[in-house]
């Protein structure tokens, strides 16, 4: 859906989606976009949106409507056009803005595979616009499906590799090229033992007593308290309820066992 971003002096005031066929702009309160500024006429301009195309028309305003620095009477809005009304700026962000992702996002919307029902619904709707919109959307989906199929799965994310078997943890994929983290036990019976954190999440502790989870995310590693009355500590300080970000060489203490988190080069 196309939208307008209203700003003044570079400060974004609000975003207005162009959901209606006619979106009016003016100083008077009955306008869809009211701009209370004396440089703006009572009924200043209107944006007519037909399917994916939006047209801006000046309604004979006193100070005129300026798009990208040029005064206009009628203008076919393009992505990133800037409409100037006095001190206010309205940036037009078209539907096709991020061409590839736009189409993809639309295509990924869940749809019912019932062409007859869609047609019936469209026919029942009195607004020709709605009917056309439905038809258009169907066509778009088909086109998107066709292009997606033609392009194979090139634009899809590569399928996530299966978690590496325990025998070869070094081969585990590194999400976003992030360095692999590991913990080394510093106290307790298994002191000196090292555990590589290859999985998206690794639980530590004793169920029923104290459990924490180490999660591997694109932003890095986090520790979160799961259960137990006592929370784990990181560098001597107890962590809160929210996930706690782990840094290289942080010392974790959990259920009486100390361990060091470190990143492998």
């Amino acid at each position, binding site marked *: *859906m196309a939208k307008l971003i209203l700003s003044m002096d570079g400060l974004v005031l609000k975003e207005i*989606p162009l*959901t209606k066929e006619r979106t009016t702009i003016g100083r008077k309160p009955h306008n869809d976009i009211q701009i209370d500024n004396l440089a703006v006429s009572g009924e200043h301009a209107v944006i007519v949106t037909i399917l994916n195309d939006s047209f801006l028309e000046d309604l004979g305003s006193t100070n005129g409507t300026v798009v990208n620095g040029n005064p206009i009477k009628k203008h076919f809005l393009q992505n990133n056009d800037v409409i100037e009304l006095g001190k206010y700026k309205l940036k037009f962000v078209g539907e096709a803005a991020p061409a590839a*992702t736009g189409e993809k*996002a639309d*295509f*990924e*919307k*869940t*749809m*019912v*595979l*019932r062409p007859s*029902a*869609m047609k019936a*619904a*469209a026919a*029942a*709707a*009195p*607004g020709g616009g*709605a*009917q056309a*919109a*439905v038809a258009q*959307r169907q066509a778009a989906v088909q086109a998107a*499906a066709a292009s*997606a*199929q033609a392009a194979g*799965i090139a634009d*899809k*994310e590569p*399928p*996530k590799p*299966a*978690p590496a078997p325990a025998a070869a943890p070094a081969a585990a994929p590194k*999400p976003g090229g992030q360095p692999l983290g590991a913990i080394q036990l510093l106290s307790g019976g298994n002191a000196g033992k090292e555990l590589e954190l290859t*999985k*998206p*999440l*690794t*639980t530590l502790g004793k*169920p029923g007593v104290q*459990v924490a*989870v180490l*999660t591997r*995310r*694109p932003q890095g590693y986090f520790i*979160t308290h*799961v*259960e137990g009355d006592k929370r784990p500590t990181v560098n001597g300080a107890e962590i809160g309820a929210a996930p706690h970000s782990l840094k290289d060489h942080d010392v974790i203490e959990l259920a009486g066992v100390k361990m060091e988190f470190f990143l492998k080069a």
Partner: protein
Amino acid sequence: MDLTQTLEIATCTDPGMVRSHNEDSIAADPANGLVVLADGMGGYNAGEVASGMATTVIVTEMRQILSNAKPYQVDEKNNQEIAARLVRDQVLKANTSIYQAAQSQSQYAGMGTTLVVCLFYDNRILVAHLGDSRLYMLREGKFRQVTRDHSLLQEQIDSGIITPEQAKKAAHKNLVTKALGIDPTVEPEIHEYPTKTGDIYLLCSDGLCDMVDDEDIGMTLQALGGNLKLAAQQLVQMANDNGGRDNVSVILVRVLREYPGAKGVMAKMFAWLK
């Protein structure tokens, strides 16, 4: 029977990383053992309207009925328990409401929603679903999908046109073959399964299962089962970390203890007296 102390329920819903608004709706009525998840579709805000109507209609109607009826009561007309019929009736009611709104208001034309409804009663779970929102179950360390999607993809898998491996890469994941509110009438798929203490049930929209592998979802539930709220947040976070291309909603339900229906001597006596 109040199931608040029997079922632990955690929910989480998020618009994801790409969409500007959330078309998913979730609702839970712990006392009546009812959870509902809907993933709406349709232009502008129609998807939200459809999913919101579905959850609201089903939860309020069921609450009303269950205030003076028990799901395990036997209907004298056909000698069957009323649970399945109750759920089906409310789903149809929601279908009618959404369909009529879509017919009467042009901005809602073509709106619809997927649906998963779970009703817990008498040590059992009754699940009704439409579309590609799913129910999973974790029991004794085993994680499996309970519902089968009503989607083109699932039909293709069933008929052997493509393998489940190919399905993961398929381009048309988003085409569902059944949904609520699209046609004047609809037939939800309804099944009933026995539950066990310790089971964890997961209801989710396709925003989760499209973004996160089943294996990882199962692992998360197993690892974080001790803290259901955290598990729900973690699942949503994983979907968002993987791209979050759709709205993500999860409902987690853990069975804490047995919850048999009143089938004691007194109940039998009472039924006999009637």
